[in-house]
């Protein structure tokens, strides 16, 4: 091919540029990890980028702290419940919207698209009042309900996109052999859309894991707080345990890192299906 030598040279330059850019772009995150390694003794005195002396005592203390571990457990359990509800509801909804035509389903589809755009702050006050009235404030139930509802439109639309790629003819032939509609969903469509279910699950999990506003307003009980709220205990007006905060934060981005390393294609798919499709 003509100019391939030039292209290779250009690509090498671009690669070097991207490596430098990626380094600068990740500076806030890298600084967090290295600051955590300086320990409480070095974090305010050792201002170099790399720690002069590696001191993991802050990590150890965070990992031994009941409060932090409990908050991680709370976040995990809420996130898993939300994944369960949200994925099953979005499978049903996505399937129905993908396999049916007619005005009522079109309107439902539009409703989901519009609900995605509504500001969350608009829902915060009424839900706060409702949960207070039902005595659900300071429980995990109110967070599970809220997060399921918030994530549902996006997840259902994404599932619909996946089901649209599975030809209806496969189901029709199964139904001729005596499958009911529900059986064909469970036995034919679901096994074919595992990638879609994985994407929706990962997205729902990360959304719940990362959420702060509702978690902060709805749950304040020491035993029940989510980890994003628990992080704030380290730096208050009374004490500033910066190394602890950095260590806890480093541990807190581990799920995101793990998903990025092992399931990058699902994250990319989730991102693109939000915009490229709808």
């Amino acid at each position, binding site marked *: 091919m003509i100019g391939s030598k030039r292209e290779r040279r250009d690509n090498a330059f671009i690669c070097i540029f991207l490596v430098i850019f990626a380094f600068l772009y990740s500076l806030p995150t890298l600084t967090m990890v290295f600051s955590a390694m300086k320990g409480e003794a070095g974090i305010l005195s050792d201002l170099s980028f790399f720690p002069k002396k590696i001191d993991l005592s802050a990590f150890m203390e965070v990992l031994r702290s009941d409060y932090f571990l409990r908050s991680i457990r709370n976040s995990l359990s809420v996130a898993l419940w939300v994944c369960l509800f949200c994925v099953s509801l979005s499978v049903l909804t996505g399937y129905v919207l993908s396999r049916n035509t007619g005005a009522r389903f079109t309107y439902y589809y539009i409703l989901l698209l519009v609900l995605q755009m509504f500001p969350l702050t608009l829902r915060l006050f009424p839900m706060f009042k409702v949960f207070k009235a039902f005595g659900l404030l300071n429980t995990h139930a109110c967070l599970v309900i809220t997060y399921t509802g918030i994530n549902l439109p996006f997840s259902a639309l994404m599932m619909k996109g996946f089901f649209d790629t599975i030809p209806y003819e496969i189901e029709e032939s199964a139904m001729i052999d005596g499958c009911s509609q529900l059986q064909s969903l469970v036995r034919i469509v679901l096994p074919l859309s595992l990638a879609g279910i994985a994407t929706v699950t990962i997205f729902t999990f990360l959304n719940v894991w990362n959420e*702060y506003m509702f978690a902060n307003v709805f749950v304040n009980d020491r035993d029940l707080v989510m980890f994003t709220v628990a992080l704030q205990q380290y730096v208050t007006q009374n004490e500033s345990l910066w190394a602890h905060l950095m260590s806890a934060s480093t541990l807190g981005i581990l799920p995101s890192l793990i998903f990025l390393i092992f399931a990058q294609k699902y994250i990319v798919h989730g991102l693109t299906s939000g915009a490229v499709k709808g």
Partner: protein
Amino acid sequence: MNKTAYKRRVSLQKKNTRLATCLLVPATLVLLAVSIYPVLSSLWMSFTNEHLLRKETNFVGLANYARLLHDSEFWGSVGFTFTYSFFVVAIAYVCGLALALMLNRKIRMRGALRAILLLPWVIPPVIAVTNLKWILHDQIGLINTTLRAWGIIDKPILFLAQYGLIRPTVILASAWKQLPFMMVTLLAGLQSVPTELYESASIDGAGFFRKLFSITLPVIRPLTFINTTLSFVWTINSFEMIWLMTGGGPSGHTFTVPVLSYYTAFFRNDMSYAATIATSILVVLLLLTLLNFRVQFGKGFEGLGLGGRGKGEAA
């Protein structure tokens, strides 16, 4: 198709539609409870004088909206919301496009670079903000200490306290968080541009910019429109980045509409006025959504009417 078979098919479809409607019930209940009721309730609240410190609540009609019209703090926040969203989306789009163009070539470590650049999108905003504040800190932050060590500045830059700097800082911080979304969606868009177009353009002697403006940008124009409006809506709605970075301060200088609404509700206890502020942004969001639909589904939204059955488009 003979008549009985047709009848059977129609009745099967009817039965299926009924089943389908039943299957939508659980999701509808959740959406009613978590999305539709709260939004309507907020609307209602904006017509009352509900206040956390006042015992009784009365219907006051449009009084809150009248107050909104003369509230300079509110209009200031509206102005900043739009500047903020515009610059965040513009910066994220231009940088995202540049990165996507580079990542679309056959370079080494493509997957690893993409993963690293994706990271800010997936980490919790609370942590992202902590990290940003940490490197922007005036005394111990990496940026200030490095610039001072290199002798470029002699006084620390107060990124988060100085009036002239706080807004650009917040905008850059949010653009930093929004960039991966733009990059990845644009990359997916670039991969759908047929390579033959570039090859024939190269033969005709077109340079890089000629190809960019005559081929790439026109082909990805619908995608550009959809992901910028989507990102614009998200940025208008976004609360956590600004709230955690500045809390709206110094003295309300970085209030966007959602932040001001939250502040009004939980620090001034004025629930009804907070609901009014939050509702006001709905109009803008609905307009943007409508625009987005027009591009996504065609002028009369005909793309919507078709449902999904057997469309068979690739994921």
